[in-house]
């Protein structure tokens, strides 16, 4: 990944504005960009959703196929998440094997889905130790305008919420069945800009940021995953205040996921 060159004047401008409680695009420090969720975007997938947060676009496709369970979890299904930061989405991405940035996105999203027990994996078991459903969650980043993690998880949970177990196609039952989603994790990402901590950073704000913190919450009031990224530091009080803000945003974003198209 080649480094994106951000002009000093741009970074300084972002930091100066943040110090007076403002942002380049006119948002408040605790305000998301407009969010659009489009479930069912891809018919070749068993569940799919296009998620847009401002200029950032992630397409998620869920595929369900029969496979073998892991030997240590014979009664559980298999969940695999993968994010592709294809070079189409940003001038800074290059073709080739997944870069650390892409791997971090898929791992942080994977952790939230897994830890929140979004899907009850035991319900994916068909025959213990022999046959189970393998759930592939593939996220395709189409446009990187900052805050990939939140956008990717929104696409993933929306796709999962609209997914169908293709039981008929694989001869497992006579009819298809909606995939059972038991919890809806939402990730909220914040970056430090000087003394301010702002939610939903743009690409330029991420370049200027002095630390990034992602908090995943679910609807039962649990924190299910966190990730601190980029160079920078947060105090324990910063973390507590970010978690409180993540719960508030989480509730609103979850309502968007449940409502489907917004």
């Amino acid at each position, binding site marked *: 990944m080649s480094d994106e060159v951000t002009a000093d004047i741009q970074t300084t401008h972002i930091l100066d504005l943040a110090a007076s409680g403002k942002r380049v695009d006119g948002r408040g420090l605790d305000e998301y960009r407009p969010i659009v969720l489009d479930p069912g975007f891809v018919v*070749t997938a068993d569940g799919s959703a296009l998620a847009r947060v401002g200029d950032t676009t992630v397409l998620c496709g869920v595929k369900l196929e029969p496979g073998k369970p892991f030997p240590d979890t014979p009664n559980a299904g298999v969940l695999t998440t993968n994010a592709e930061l*294809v*070079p189409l989405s*940003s001038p800074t991405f290059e073709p080739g094997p997944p870069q650390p940035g892409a791997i971090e996105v898929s791992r942080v999203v994977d952790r939230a889905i897994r830890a929140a027990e979004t899907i009850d994996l035991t319900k994916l078991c068909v025959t213990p130790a022999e046959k189970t459903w393998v759930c*592939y969650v593939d996220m395709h980043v189409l446009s990187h305008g900052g805050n990939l993690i939140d956008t990717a998880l929104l696409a993933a949970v929306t796709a999962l919420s609209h997914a169908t177990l293709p039981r008929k196609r694989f001869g497992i039952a006579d009819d298809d069945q909606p995939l059972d989603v038991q919890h809806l994790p939402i990730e909220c990402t914040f970056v430090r800009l000087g003394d301010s901590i702002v939610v939903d950073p743009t690409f330029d704000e991420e370049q200027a940021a002095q630390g990034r913190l992602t908090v995943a919450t679910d609807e039962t009031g649990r924190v299910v995953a966190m990730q601190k990224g980029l160079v920078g530091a947060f105090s324990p009080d910063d973390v507590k205040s970010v978690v409180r803000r993540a719960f508030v945003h989480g509730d609103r974003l979850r309502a968007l996921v449940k409502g489907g198209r917004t």
Partner: protein
Amino acid sequence: MGSVGAKEVPVLLTPDGRRIDGRRLDELRPIQIQAGPLRQADGSAFVEWGANKVMAAVYGPREVHPRHLQQNDRAVIQCKYNMAAFSVDERKRPGLDRRSQEISKVIGEALQSVVFTEEYPRTSIDVYIEVLQANAGTRCAGLVAASVALADAGIPMVDLLPAVAVGKVAGAIALDLKKEEDNFGEADLPLALVPQSGRLVLLQMEGHMTEEELGRALELGVGGCRDIYEKMKAALRTRYAVTPMEATP
């Protein structure tokens, strides 16, 4: 042309000349082209063609990576065609495969045939094509998207490059095959046309055709390309239309 195991062959052509989706032999699937949907890219296009959904983005002219590919007298066009894992019925493993690499090469060479690369020596024009939903004809849809994206990026070209596949279905020459026709048909022939010169810059073929059938297939394909050409121009006109507000001084 992929064999699909023991699946039954569907009725591909009715006695009155209608195809599996009701089209006539010389009829294209519905095509929608949007120029410039991606903000980060220098140029972009989204093509919905039947049940295909393809996004293309162009970056450049910019520095060449890796450096040894640099040409002193012209730009290089580096094209990458990629399919999303969920774009096909059976999940495709992410990453490079031989088919994608071959398609990337022939699309890149087709584009290189019409771009004035000598205008930008020692640079790279990077063309990325992402197939999000596939239903036969993705290389043609990808090339159409890439061509509109290049125009959207303001890169000078001889002409836009419309492309379409012609095939042989139940013994008849048919325009723009969809998935069932591609799987169970007898031949597939994708081509891309330079409308100004009437020449072909992409041409592949797989299957069986007689010389006479091939001649008709080429004619049908060229005619299809001319229709697609109009849609490509219309997409660019829509993108760069001057609204009355902007027109007032």
